[in-house]
């Protein structure tokens, strides 16, 4: 249910998974995560960073108006629409005190039991009801209890954690219009408990969640035994029926979320109930790691009894019963300003292995602060306990060079994690004249001085990305080194493609007098501009002209979708555990084909296929064959072998210039926020997502007192590199 643990999406129709319908987690990766990790300013950096406001335009506007207008108008339309929504929202806010009573009138009591059961009956293949006697007898149950714990036994429960959100969530639902906001990660993805949870320190192993035991048969069917003590935050026990209810909801058109409709009908073949605590899930095909697909969160049958056509309105501001340690607190919520999560005091996993000593603060308060710099100042003043947008060097070195840090009140930590790296790099569009020549692409690989950007602009902190699928552990090639900056090699490659004459501006020309000049599309923010200018300045040495085109997100994204770019500095969204190839490098996504024949454009060139992730227009038969095999691969070894072969061919294609990735994240926090001795878990992309921190109230009082009295502590800057790739 969370994008984070969804399998690789092999769906062709563009980047729907990563752009339009991305789950909360995916969105956070782009809109917020990127800010933290990827030294990019407010404009969301990944190309997937299409803002939710735009991607979620009402269909009428989206299909009728917005598409016929140029990008600039679309932006304006989106803004106007948002303003309009805001006005309506504000209007309703003023009515809020009155609406408490009228709400019931708008939403009369409703009972969907009959229609739910009818739906189950109508899909007997998907929803199967059997008895416990039908359960295979020879199942070998696993429980994962041999795995190590990762929380700190010294952790204390209690306290209020103060953090911020850039905007107020438009809904408290976790699915449906508006649910895909950046806040979804905080209240759902990081909190909800799946039947089994991936262990964050041991890759490929799982620990119990709502289920105590499980068993995988034929890589396709997973048998599960629920924890008898499992219950929702409202006290209702978690039973198999709640999982059935979840599938019913996800299949229903009432959620108005086609991505989920598709996901939950095609990615699962059937759910089988044996008794109240025993059930099985069957996948359509055998998969190397079927547990990975168990990203399902039960829907409390009692709570969703009124689920119907008006679900989106009826449930918009109702806090759903949580399976996790926290539940949304509607009592203290101030719309537009503040939202809180309350710890579930009698959570069923509270004292269990893997969950004890985690989820420690009693309350997590999120204040809405739209401006990042303002949030940073609030943090400096002590109004926020924690701030994790500090990975970019400018924050880490410059903005954090403040007395609060020198005096030891604010601590800094840098943690090397083991998480897939977003494939930042320069994507060369092979569909454009000039770039269709592999020799020129190789020349460009040697002419873009990535290392200098890393050394100077990123202060040597980041590491060069090796391949587009870097950071997936064994599935990533480590022997392929990206081509280094070299004027000689670049000029040799350009010369072999015919560009061997020097113009008076220092740019190479070919015999026809065509200049070696390409456009590089970057995001319109100071940091990306700087990268672009650095590339431009260095490429000039190799006789290549790089023209910088800085575009806002909407226009940048539109040009990429239409494949109008020549070179583009961007990145895609990523998810563990396997790298993706089909979307980004398969020929099916490169050019338009009708009945097996290429379609041609006005210039007689093959017509680029719009709306796909293959922005390099890579079209290589050998690679296509490998990718087809990769998709059908059923074992991890096979996947590893094919992934490495794909990496090799992509390297030879030279259509992707790997840039850089931080192999760490950085965090700044007040002294009273405490972490385990090894700081965090291996497979984490942010410090708080695994909830291992706690608040030390005594330390807080001591720090505040010291600050009042002008006493100082030694400055704390920790580097945790136990998971650093050697």
């Amino acid at each position, binding site marked *: 249910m969370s994008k984070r643990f969804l399998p690789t999406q092999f769906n062709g129709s563009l980047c729907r998974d990563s752009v339009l319908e991305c789950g909360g987690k995916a969105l956070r990766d782009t809109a917020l995560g990127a800010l933290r990790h990827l030294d990019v300013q407010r404009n969301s950096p990944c190309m997937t960073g299409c803002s939710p406001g735009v991607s979620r335009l009402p269909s009428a506007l989206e299909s009728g108006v917005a598409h016929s207008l140029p990008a600039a108008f679309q932006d304006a339309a989106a803004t106007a629409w948002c303003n309009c929504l805001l006005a309506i929202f504000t209007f309703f806010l003023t009515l809020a005190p009155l609406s408490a009573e009228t709400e019931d009138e708008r939403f009369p009591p409703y009972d969907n039991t009959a229609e739910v059961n009818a739906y189950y009956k109508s899909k007997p293949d998907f929803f199967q009801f059997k008895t416990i006697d039908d359960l295979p007898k020879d199942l070998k149950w696993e429980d994962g209890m041999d795995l190590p714990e990762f929380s700190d036994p010294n952790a204390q429960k209690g306290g209020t954690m103060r953090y911020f959100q850039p905007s107020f969530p438009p809904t408290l639902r976790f699915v449906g219009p508006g649910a895909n906001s950046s806040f979804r990660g905080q209240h759902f993805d990081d909190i909800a408990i799946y039947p089994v949870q991936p262990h964050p320190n041991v890759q490929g192993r799982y620990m119990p969640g709502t289920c105590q035991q499980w068993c995988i048969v034929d890589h396709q069917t997973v048998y599960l035994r629920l924890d008898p003590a499992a219950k929702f935050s409202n006290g209702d026990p978690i039973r198999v029926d709640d999982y059935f209810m979840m599938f019913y909801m996800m299949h229903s058109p009432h959620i108005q979320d086609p991505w989920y409709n598709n996901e939950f009908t095609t990615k699962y073949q059937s759910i089988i109930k044996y008794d109240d605590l025993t059930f099985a899930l069957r996948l359509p095909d055998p998969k190397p790691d079927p547990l990975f697909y168990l990203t399902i969160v039960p829907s409390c049958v009692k709570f969703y009894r009124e689920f119907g056509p008006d679900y989106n309105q009826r449930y918009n501001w109702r806090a759903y019963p949580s399976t996790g340690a926290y539940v949304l607190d509607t009592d203290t919520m101030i719309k537009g300003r503040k939202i809180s999560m309350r710890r579930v005091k009698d959570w069923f996993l509270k004292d269990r292995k893997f969950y004890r000593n985690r989820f420690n603060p009693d309350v997590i308060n999120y204040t809405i602060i739209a401006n990042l710099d303002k949030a940073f100042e609030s943090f400096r003043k002590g109004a926020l306990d924690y701030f994790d947008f500090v990975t970019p060097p400018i924050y880490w070195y410059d903005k954090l060079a403040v007395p609060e840090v020198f005096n030891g009140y604010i601590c800094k930590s840098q943690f090397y994690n083991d998480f897939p790296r977003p494939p930042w790099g320069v994507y060369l569009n092979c569909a454009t004249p000039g770039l269709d020549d592999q020799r020129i692409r190789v020349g460009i690989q040697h002419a873009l001085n990535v290392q200098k950007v890393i050394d*100077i602009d990123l202060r*040597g902190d980041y590491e060069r990305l090796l391949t587009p699928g870097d950071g997936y552990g064994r599935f990533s090639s480590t022997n392929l080194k990206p081509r280094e900056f070299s004027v000689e090699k670049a000029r040799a490659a350009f010369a072999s493609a015919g560009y061997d004459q020097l113009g008076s501006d220092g740019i190479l020309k070919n015999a026809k007098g065509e200049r070696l000049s390409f456009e590089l599309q*970057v995001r319109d923010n100071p940091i990306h501009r700087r990268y*672009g*200018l650095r590339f431009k300045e260095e490429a000039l040495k190799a006789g290549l002209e790089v023209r910088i085109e*800085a575009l806002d997100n909407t226009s940048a994204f539109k040009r990429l979708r239409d494949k109008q770019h020549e070179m583009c500095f961007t990145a895609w969204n990523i998810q563990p555990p396997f790298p993706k190839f089909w979307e980004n490098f398969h020929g099916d996504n490169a050019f338009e084909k009708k009945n097996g024949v290429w379609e041609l454009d006005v210039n007689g060139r093959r017509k680029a296929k719009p709306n796909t992730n293959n922005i390099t227009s890579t079209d290589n038969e050998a690679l296509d064959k490998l990718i087809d095999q990769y998709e059908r691969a059923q074992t991890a070894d096979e996947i590893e072998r094919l992934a490495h072969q794909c990496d090799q061919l992509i390297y030879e294609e030279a259509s992707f210039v790997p840039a850089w990735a931080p192999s760490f994240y950085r965090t700044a926090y007040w002294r009273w926020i405490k972490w385990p001795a090894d700081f965090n878990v291996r497979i984490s992309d942010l410090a708080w997502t695994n909830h291992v921190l706690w608040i030390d109230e005594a330390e807080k009082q001591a720090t505040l007192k010291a600050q009042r009295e002008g006493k100082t502590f030694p400055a704390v800057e920790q580097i945790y590199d136990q998971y650093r790739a050697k």
Partner: protein
Amino acid sequence: MRKLAIVLLTLALLRILQLATGWEIPLVKWLSVAASAVGALGLTLLTTTLSLVKAAPSPATLKAMQAFVSGLWVFWSVNLVCLAALGLGVYLLQQGDKISWDPLTLKRWKRFRSLRRGYVSMWILGALVFIALLDNVLVGKRALLVKYDGHVRCPFLEADPIMGREFGVTPGNSETDYRELKERFQGTANWVLMPLVPYDARADTPPVMAHLEKRGDGIYYEVGEVEPYTGTAAQNFKEHPDVKRQDLRFQAGKLHGGISLNDAEGSPVERVTYENGVEQSRVKLNESDAAALDAAANPQFQVIKYAPTPPSWRHRHFLGTDSSGGDILAIMIGAFQLIIGGTLFFLVVTYLIGVVVGGLTGYLGGWIDLLAQRGIEIWSSMPFLYVIILLRSLNERPSLLFVITALAAFSWMGISAYMRTATFREKNRDYVAAARLMGASNRRMVFTHILPNTLSVLITLLPFKVDALIAGLTSLDYLGFGLPVGEPSWGVLLKDGVDNLAKPWILMSGFAALASVLVLVTFIGEAIREAFDPRKFTYYE
């Protein structure tokens, strides 16, 4: 007169010199720049008009037209201008003394000279413009003179870049880095003379390097600094300057934190941890000869001073660098050059449109006036900034020309309003009526009688238009809707300064440049206004 003649003749002579030697002479270069700008604008207008009437030229024709503009057009238009300058210069030199000025003009000039503030401002501004026109004599990364193997060359005058190999740099197959060459030549018979500011305004952001030294107290300092060094440093290999032997971290002049030692390929061979200068742990990752590696490394610890760096005479960054490492003085001058060019173009366009529209409506009056005024009202009520931003986002490749044209399109209304009033007033004066009675044609009345008498209004307005343009251009750049990425601009400098308030030299430089030019122009404007004040010299009631 004589002075003007000398200036014109110099220009013509420089052009002749340029044609004869093929040198890129700074002062004449501006004529080519202007000519190609006008040519490009003409081409754009032509193609836009053609595509509007559905007769868009084919790519081949377009290419041919572009080639014509950048080739023949620029060459001959510059030649013609210089020829005209030559002719005019010679004529003035011969006949200059016989030209008698209108006494009114002389009076105004005298009055202007007597207003010291404006007069001095004019000279200062003139000097600034001259400095900007000197271009890469003063500012640029190409050397003025290089002496190599007994020959002296002037790289800044040569049109084609000189490859490094011509000065003995290996492999040297990109343009010579003269700053590096200068260091390379130190202690040899060869030498390099760089411009005063040895940096370009565009795409020239070399990192500022410094070295560490260990002083008597055993603490590391940056050469020439008094505070112990805090930050990172690197030790490179002698043979491979790009490969780091070790990455060091210093806190208050002492080694602190994890350090990884690498071999000549750059792969780590050892990890050492320090705390306050004391070694805590040392882990060998593989068997390697540490002593040999140390011997192969450069003994100096190198420090990259990350941009923005403060003003420094040693590095010849007289006003420091901005946040991308560009030299601020070079950027300021580069931006001023753009502003000068932009201003001239802007004034021509706005005055042309303003005078024609204002003059016509004022002179013809009636229905034409009524309609034109309503049109102008509608046009001027358009939210200027939004329209510019909209146009900017529609145009994917904005240039200075585009931005200035867009600004001009919204700036002529004021001039036309003044012009209309002035024409209206003059038209109803007795002398115009008398001329009409005597049967003067419309043309004669407009050009001989009315236009010269509206001149004072137009000239008075001039400096304020310049002010408005500079401020407009800068604010558009500040907002990010101005010039293309990488072009020097005061607005970008200001924005950078505001984003880096802790580095005051950026904002101060940008602000000083903008404020001083605006003040100078305003002083000149005031003086002109006063010199042209009709209350002093008009005899009409």
